[in-house]
């Protein structure tokens, strides 16, 4: 009997020939991700750090992205504490304010590779399945322990197989695919599970796979992963990582899954997740015409070049509605620069948008676009929980870059397919 991706990689890291769901293994991850929360993490273990030091200076990857540049003195003090820690312990992988969002940085810099394990003190760590890595979120305390010991336990999960067939229609994107899946599976449907994507995945770029894997946790998944194929290999080559630098792990054809789902991509429509749950997914025709006051285009879910290309095509020569603020949030400095070179940023600014520094921005409600009571935000981000953007009397709708761009022009939720027919 064959093994799933999760079974194979956990067996390898746990030095076992064969593992079964439920089995507990001690593993040493290749990297440990922390962001601004590195400050409270290292504060937990000051005496231990002094006495034992850190396990390995190449293990941690620290990216300042959550509240950047510092919004208040407290953030500034934490950032300073992190920079001092990086210096004192000679941390190898540190990315200061403005580099980008941690998940994008990890993938863009080849710190998550096929067949490796990355754990991170952020729930969207599951994103790196886009390049065939096993990656999963943990809390701050576990990150602190990992800094000291370099190892932790993982339970072998059940696996869910999602097969994607056919081709997407025009103006339907990877975001519509993952929102549709979450709508069907529900916010808890993949709890504790590893989610594998199969089928016609060759048509999805690494950027699109990133959007899909990023939202795995929104259905409860432990990790979400795509097979390593030519698309992955070519992407990694483009960032200077040759095939000899990694060993891909793909699931066996005869692996056992707890659940199997198949989607015909041709049937997927533009969809929107309505307040206050990511699994409250509706076809766009049911929410068309709802007025919005803020639009957010970007984040670790949809802040990459291909997302900006889609939006720029729609916004070129147009103006954002006078009652709407359109915020642009590039996922990294590199993407920001590439978008500048392609003239996309110019299109956004000429349309009346505001470009924010590469980071998490208003997505978690700390700064840069907090909402007021009664306001609605249409966002390409991954969460629409009540209070998420800093106000518990505001509403967040989640959608694709195409929907957000066209809706920003009209000031209300608009179907991008209608706009493009004009």
């Amino acid at each position, binding site marked *: 009997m064959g093994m799933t991706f999760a079974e194979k990689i956990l067996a390898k890291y746990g030095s076992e020939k064969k593992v079964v769901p439920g089995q507990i293994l001690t593993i040493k991850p290749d990297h440990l991700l922390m962001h601004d929360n590195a400050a409270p993490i290292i504060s937990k273990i000051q005496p231990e750090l002094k006495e034992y030091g850190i396990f390995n200076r190449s293990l941690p990857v620290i990216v300042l992205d959550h509240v950047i540049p510092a919004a208040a003195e407290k953030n500034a003090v934490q950032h300073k504490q992190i920079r001092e820690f990086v210096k004192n312990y000679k941390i190898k992988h540190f990315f200061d304010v403005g580099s980008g969002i941690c998940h994008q940085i990890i993938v863009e810099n080849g710190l998550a590779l096929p067949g490796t394990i990355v754990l991170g003190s952020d729930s969207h760590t599951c994103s790196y399945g886009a390049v065939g890595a096993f990656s999963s979120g943990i809390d701050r305390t*576990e990150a602190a322990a990992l800094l000291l010991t370099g190892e932790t336990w993982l339970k072998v999960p059940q696996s869910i197989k999602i097969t994607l067939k056919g081709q997407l229609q025009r103006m339907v994107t990877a975001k519509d695919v993952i929102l549709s899946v979450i709508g069907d599976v529900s916010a*808890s449907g993949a709890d504790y599970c590893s989610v594998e994507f199969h089928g016609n995945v060759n048509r999805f770029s690494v950027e699109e796979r990133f959007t899909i894997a990023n939202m795995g946790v929104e259905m409860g998944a432990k990790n979400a992963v795509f097979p390593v194929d030519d698309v992955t290999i070519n992407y990694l080559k483009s960032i200077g990582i040759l095939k000899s630098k990694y060993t891909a792990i793909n699931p066996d054809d005869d692996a056992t899954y707890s659940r199997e789902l198949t989607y015909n991509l041709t049937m997927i429509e533009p969809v929107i997740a309505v307040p206050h749950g990511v699994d409250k997914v509706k076809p766009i025709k049911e929410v068309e015409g709802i007025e919005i006051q803020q639009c957010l285009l970007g984040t670790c879910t949809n802040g990459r070049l291909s997302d900006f290309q889609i939006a720029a095509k729609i916004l070129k020569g147009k103006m954002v509605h006078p009652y709407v603020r359109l915020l642009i949030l590039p996922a990294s400095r590199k993407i920001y620069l590439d978008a500048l070179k392609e003239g996309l940023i110019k299109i956004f600014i000429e349309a009346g948008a505001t470009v924010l520094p590469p980071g998490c921005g208003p997505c978690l*409600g700390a700064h840069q676009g907090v909402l007021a009571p009664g306001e609605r935000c249409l966002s390409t981000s991954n*969460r629409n929980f009540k209070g998420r953007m800093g106000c518990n009397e505001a509403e967040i709708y989640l959608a694709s870059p195409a929907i957000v761009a066209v809706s920003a022009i009209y000031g209300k939720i608009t179907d991008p397919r209608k706009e493009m027919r004009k």
Partner: protein
Amino acid sequence: MKIWKYGDNINTDMLFPGKYTYTCSTAEEIRPHLLEDLDPLFAKNVKEGDLIFAGRNFGCGSSREQPVLGIKAAGIAAVVAESFARIFYRSSINQGLLLIECPEAVKAYKQGDRVGLDVEKGTIMIGSNTFSFQKLPKEILAIRDSGGLLPYTRERLRRKKK
């Protein structure tokens, strides 16, 4: 003992709003904001030994550990739910907070029912009915029983050094 009863998909933003994640880290800082957007009475009235009952997927969302830390520090003896989101579940082991996954008990509970907990036996009593819940595997139980992952890790490092 009071039972605080909530529904499905109680997420980390409801348990502890994201806007405070980088300004509140200690139990004292977290406490006043616990469940702020879900139940404003909770932080004011919660007492040592109270229980939380909830539906499916309790603690979904962020990797935020403040809700776990805060709920433990507020004296909640256990959270009983139909199911938990995995990062929250893991985090509770790391903080030494008792979570009980027992859909039958949650479904059976009616307001005013007497509730009894036997952690050793792995049973929960609701009114006149007793339900069993699965205990953690022993290697994981060792972490929770040490008072959480940091005390457990400290002890391991100390032994290793000797």
